[in-house]
C-alpha cells in the first residue's frame, strides 16, 4: 500500500481549476461556430504578433514609400497601394496590432470599472441597510446616466479636449463602454448574493471586501469573461468609428485610420482594396470575438445553448 499523498488546499484549488478548464474546453469544442471564431481570432492575433516578420515597418513610413500611389495589386504590393504609395498589405498587418491593442486595453479598462461598480452595487444593495441601498441607488443612477449620454458626442468631446493619441482613445472608449458590463454584473451579483454560502460567510464574520472578492467575484467571473469577449468586439468597432471621424492617432496606422485615409483621399477613383481590405479585416475580427463570446456564454450558461 502506498503512502497517502498530502496536498495543500491551494493545490486542490488549482487542480479543480484545471479540471474545470478541461471540461469547458471539451464542451466548447463541440460548438462549430465557436471553433470558427476561435480559429479566426488565433489567426488574427498571430498575424498581429508576427507583424515584424511578415512586413517591414519601414513600409509604413510615407517618406520612404517608393511604390506608385493608388496602384492596383502588383508583385510587391499584393493589395495595391494607398495614396501615399504605401503597400496596403503592410498597413493591414501592422494595423492589426494597433486595432487589437486598443480593443483589448479599452475593454480591460471598461471591464475593471464595470465589474467593480457592478459587484459593489450588487453587494451593498442586498444588505438590509439604508446606507447599502443608497449606495446601490447612487451607483445605478450614475450608470444609467452614462448609458443615456450618447457615446459618439461624449467621445468626440473628450477626444477633442485631451488630444489625439493612443492613450486618450483607450481611455475614451473604456469609460464609455463600462455601463453595459456594470448592469449585467450587478444583476448577476444580486443573484449570487442570495445564495447560502454568502449567508454562511456573513455569519462567520466575513467583511465586505472578503465577501465581494472571495465569494461574489469568482461566481460572477464566467459571465464577466463572456461579456468581456463580446465587449472587445464593440470596442474595436468604436475605435474604427473614432478614427474615421479623425479623432484617432494619425501617426499610428490602425484599420480605422486606413478607412479614414481612404475616405479623405478619394478612394473611389483609385485602388478600391484600400477601402475593402481593412473593412473585411474588421468584420472578421469582430465576428470572431462575437462567435467566441456567444459560444463561451452558451457553455457557461446551459440555458443559452441551442440558439
Amino acid at each position, binding site marked *: 500500500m502506498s503512502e497517502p499523498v498530502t496536498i495543500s488546499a491551494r493545490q486542490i484549488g488549482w487542480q479543480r481549476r484545471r479540471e474545470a478548464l478541461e471540461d469547458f474546453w471539451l464542451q466548447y469544442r463541440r460548438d462549430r461556430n465557436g471553433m470558427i471564431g476561435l480559429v479566426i481570432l488565433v489567426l488574427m492575433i498571430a498575424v498581429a504578433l508576427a507583424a515584424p516578420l511578415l512586413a517591414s515597418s519601414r513600409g509604413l513610413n510615407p517618406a520612404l514609400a517608393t511604390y506608385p500611389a493608388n496602384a492596383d495589386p502588383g508583385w510587391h504590393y499584393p493589395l495595391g497601394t494607398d495614396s501615399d504609395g504605401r503597400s496596403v498589405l503592410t498597413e493591414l498587418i501592422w494595423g492589426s496590432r494597433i486595432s487589437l491593442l486598443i480593443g483589448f486595453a479599452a475593454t480591460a479598462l471598461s471591464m475593471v470599472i464595470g465589474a467593480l461598480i457592478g459587484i459593489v452595487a450588487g453587494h451593498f444593495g442586498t444588505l438590509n441597510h439604508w446606507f447599502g441601498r443608497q449606495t446601490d441607488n447612487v451607483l445605478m443612477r450614475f450608470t444609467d446616466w452614462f448609458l443615456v449620454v450618447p*457615446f459618439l458626442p461624449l467621445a468626440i468631446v473628450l477626444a477633442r479636449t485631451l488630444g489625439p493619441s493612443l492613450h486618450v482613445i483607450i481611455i475614451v472608449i473604456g469609460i464609455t*463602454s463600462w455601463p*453595459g458590463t456594470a448592469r449585467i454584473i450587478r*444583476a448577476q451579483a444580486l443573484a449570487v448574493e442570495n445564495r447560502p454560502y454568502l449567508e454562511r460567510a456573513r455569519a462567520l464574520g466575513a467583511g465586505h471586501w472578503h465577501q465581494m472578492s472571495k465569494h461574489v467575484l469568482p461566481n460572477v467571473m464566467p459571465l464577466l469573461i463572456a461579456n468581456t469577449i463580446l465587449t472587445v468586439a464593440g470596442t474595436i*468597432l468604436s475605435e474604427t468609428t473614432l478614427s474615421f471621424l479623425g479623432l484617432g492617432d494619425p501617426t499610428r496606422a490602425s484599420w480605422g485610420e486606413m478607412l479614414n485615409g481612404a475616405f479623405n483621399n478619394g478612394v473611389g477613383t483609385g485602388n478600391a482594396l484600400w477601402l475593402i481590405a481593412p473593412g473585411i479585416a474588421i468584420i472578421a475580427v469582430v465576428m470572431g470575438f462575437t462567435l467566441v463570446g456567444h459560444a463561451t456564454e452558451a457553455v457557461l450558461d446551459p440555458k443559452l445553448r441551442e440558439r
Partner: protein
Amino acid sequence: MSGAFLDGALAAAQERRGEEERAARGGSGLARSLGVKVLSAAVTLLFVLVFNFFLFRVLPADPARNLARGTTLTATQMAAINKTFGIGLPLWQQFTNYFVQTFHGNLGISFQYHIPVSQVIGKALWPTILLVGTSTVLSTVIGVWMGIRGGWKHGSAFDQISNGVNNTLYAMPDFWLGMVLLIAFSSKWFLFPAGGMNSVTGNLSGLHGLLDLLWHLTLPCVVLTLVYLAEYSLVMRSSLIDELGNDYLLTARAKGLRDAMVRSRHAVPNALLPSITLIMLNLGFVISGAITTETVFSWPGLGLASYNALNFPDYPVLEGCFLLFSAAVIVANLIADLLLTVLDPRVRQA
C-alpha cells in the same frame, strides 16, 4: 459598443421589471410610477445640462479668437466679444446665464458660420429626422419580420442564413458599408447620386423634387436600415425563442388554432416587448449614430453638422448638438419606459 450595449439594455429592461415589482408596493401604481419616471428623466436632463456647461468651459475655447479666426481684431474688440460671452464673470453667474439662455433657445454663435447655433441646428434637423425616421421604420419592419420567421422555425435554413447575414451586418462598420455602396452604385455604376440631399441643378418643385429627394435618400437609408435591422432581428428571434416554451402556446395549439395564428396572435405580441424597448432606445441613439453615415453621403443633417464642427473645432455647435443628442436619448428612454409600463402589466404594481 453595440454588443455590450444590447445586453446591457436588455438586462436593464429586465432589471427594471424586477425593480418595479419591488418598488411599486403601495400607492396608486400606474400614475405614481409614471410620475416618478418623468421626474427622473427631468433630473437626468438637468445633470446633462450641468455636465455640458462644465465640459465646454473646460475646453480651451477662447471665443473671441475662435470667432475671429481669419480676420484681425484689436484688443478692445476682443475684450468686447469676450464680455458678451461672459468670460470675465464669476462661474455661478456664467452658469445661470447659460441656463437662462438655453431655456430661451439661445445656444450661442457658431464659430464657423457666424450665425446662431439654433439656426444651424434648425436647418439640419429635418434632414436627419427624415433619414433616421425612414430607416427606422424600414429596419423595424424588416428586422422584426426576419426575427419572427427565423425564431419560429429556429434551426431551419432560413434561420441559419439570416443568422449569418445578421451577424455579418452587426460586425460591419456602418460607414464602411456606406463607402462600399457609394463606390459601387455611384462611382462604378452611375445609378445613384454621390451625396447631398438635392441635385444642384434642375427643377426641384412638386413631384420632380420629391422624386429627386427620394433618389438621394436611397443609399444612406439603405445603409442605416441594413445596420439596424440586424440588431432588431437578433433580439426578436431571441425573445420569440424564449416564448416558445410557454404553456399558453400549448393551450392555443390544443384548441386547434393554426400554427400561423398561434404565432401571430399569441407568441409574437408577448415576444415583441423587448423589441419595442430596443426600438425606442435605439431611436434616441440613432440620431447621434447617424453621424458617420451622414458624413459619408454628405447628407446635410445634424451628423454632418457635428462632423464639420468637430474638425474646425466649432465648440458652440458641438455643445448644441451634444445637448440635442442627449435630450433625444433621454426622451426616447422615457417613452420606452412609459410604453413598457403601459404595455406590460407585470411591470406595474405587482
